[in-house]
């Protein structure tokens, strides 16, 4: 039983993850005013010009608005890369 649920979640996760990544890219382009910005699961704050702690909050608020979720301060501060953000959003049912 468990294995089967796991299998479907993983399969779902693959396609869901792509959808989330696309939507995240739109949000990032909006916040950084850069229509050519490209994201991958490995992207970190170091890779994007101007992604400092102040912009991070704007970013997180825009993400929350776009995905209709609410994130706690801990969740917002612990993210290591875009992959972790996708996982977090997915875990909230997005």
């Amino acid at each position: 039983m468990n294995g089967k649920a796991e299998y479907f979640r993983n399969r779902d996760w693959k396609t869901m993850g792509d959808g989330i990544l696309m939507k995240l890219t739109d949000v990032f382009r909006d916040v950084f005013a850069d229509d050519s910005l490209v994201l991958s699961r490995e992207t970190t704050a170091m890779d994007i010009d101007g992604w400092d702690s102040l912009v991070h909050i704007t970013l997180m608020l825009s993400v929350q608005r776009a995905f209709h979720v609410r994130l706690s301060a801990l969740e917002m501060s612990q993210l290591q890369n875009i992959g972790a953000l996708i996982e977090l959003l997915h875990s909230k049912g997005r």
Partner: protein
Amino acid sequence: MGDELLAELSWLPKAPEDFSERCNALIGSEGPQGERVRALASCALGENKLNRLSKVIDALRARPGAIHPLVPFRLGMTSNATTHYLASPLVATAARYGIALECIEGEFDQSLQESLDPDSAINRARPDAVLLALDYRGLHLHPMPGDAAGARRAIAAALDQLGAIRNGFKGNGDAICILQTLARPPETSFGSLDLALPGTPRHLIDGFNRGLAESLGGSQDFLLDVAGLAESIGLAEWHDPTLWNMGKIPFANKFLPVYADFVCRLIAALRGKSRRCLVLDLDNTLWGGVIGDDGLPGIILGQGDATGEAFLSVQRTALELRERGVVLAVCSKNDDETAREPFRNHPEMLLREHHVAIFQANWNDKATNIRAIAEALSLGLESMVLLDDSPVERGLVREILPEVAVPELPEDPALYARTLLAAGYFEAVSLSAEDRRRADIYRENALRIALKENVPSIDDYLRSLGTTIHFRPFDPLGRARTAQLINKSNQFNLTTRRYSEAQIERLENDPAFFTLQVRLTDSFGDNGMICAVICARNQEDWQIDTWLMSCRVLGRRVEDAVLDEIVRNARLQGIRRLTGTYLPTPRNKLVEEHYDRLGFDLLERADDGATRWELAVDKYLPRNPPITVARSERNGAGR
């Protein structure tokens, strides 16, 4: 209040789809770009779009003359909370009010030091004003439930501290201060008792706000009632504990756009840029229904009916604005006499002719009329606001007179007044005796003024509407609506002949008649069936028995498209001549010159004012209005 209205700035039109392309284009353009910046800023922009536009403004400011004609204003900002997220939205929003704003941020929680040090960043900048964006959490207003004397001392001490800051900026920076009231937290400690018990957070903050408001008398400082804004939105929505904990962010960022608008409308008011004249549409704006078609007993207005009361509230709001010095005008597509009738004879009307300075009821476009109203009142177009339920009219005035403020309105007339007031067009920083008198200065009483030429660019606007006209002969599907139009239309109706559904049904299959039912669609949606035509064949003539149209689509060259279509069909059927008749009624003066305007020649004029006209089909040049034509064929009146 429904936080969407305020959070989304619902009275502003939506941002264009290509917003970011337009931003990029502004940066790349030569010459002054202020007007285009202002146009973009006048859309409902969220936080990210405001940030983007503020970057454009910063880039333009670096180039001499590029931000013209926006006028500079330098705003110092100091707070015991994070101001970082305020500056960019303020800069972009100020452009909405014609202001090129420059923000100088003080150090975090250093308000007193910034004000007392003549060499601080804010004082050195010699700002026009300093915004003291204080948060309750940074003042020493600690709860002391039940301690009335302690509470009084704490409030006085906090006001004293603020007084010292105000004096500092006045003495060292020669600046006036904009003082925020404190938005109290939504949490209570005792519950309802918090209001009555001295020393609760609610009691302390209410006391501080009241004291702050009273301290303004005799000073040059101004109040920004953030407490009032936050309460309108909902305190639990306004305060976001997560954001405060993370970065001392004083309120939820989704309210940055409306906060910025509140600040900027106040700055605009300081600069004398508040609006002064409210121009009112009539049908479906001041009452429900169309006076020209429904008549005095048919319009919806008055107590006892939810819709009637909604329109009363619009009128009440207009009257209250007039009391405080806003000039009222009327601009409506109507016959003058018909439009004035409710003002004179409807028992429920609150607005009367003597409340209205200029009364423009005619069939010209509203842009031309509003320009004439502004000139007659010696006001700039920047002083005007138009309240109109029709999205097409709103779009036209915005397009041709971008200086005029035209609020978007929701479907429900019960929300018209709230939306108009939420937009803050008439923000005032004081109420003078002159304001109270102004209504009486305009004693001309519903003056009617002559118009100059129409604005030429209307065709461009009509083209931008993407209008499509659909022609179909009468058919069973449209029969009920055709009958309704034929039996209800009074104003744009050449002969006012009424036909029953049964009679109309017979026309559908009678080859001796050519009929048209006409629909109109545009980028705002489907206007439905708006016109009907009946031509009767008489040898090589078509006699136009019936030609009527809904007044909602006046001024959009529908008549031109319809005549093109009639002539096109006449040619196909070998018709040589069209004849038309105008039969005057008390309601249809609007179309007295209809055939003359369309190039028909007068045949005869009867004693009762009825006229007959003719048009030679082979000499007719298509009028080709900027409207796309779609048609389904099959029609009678052939050989």
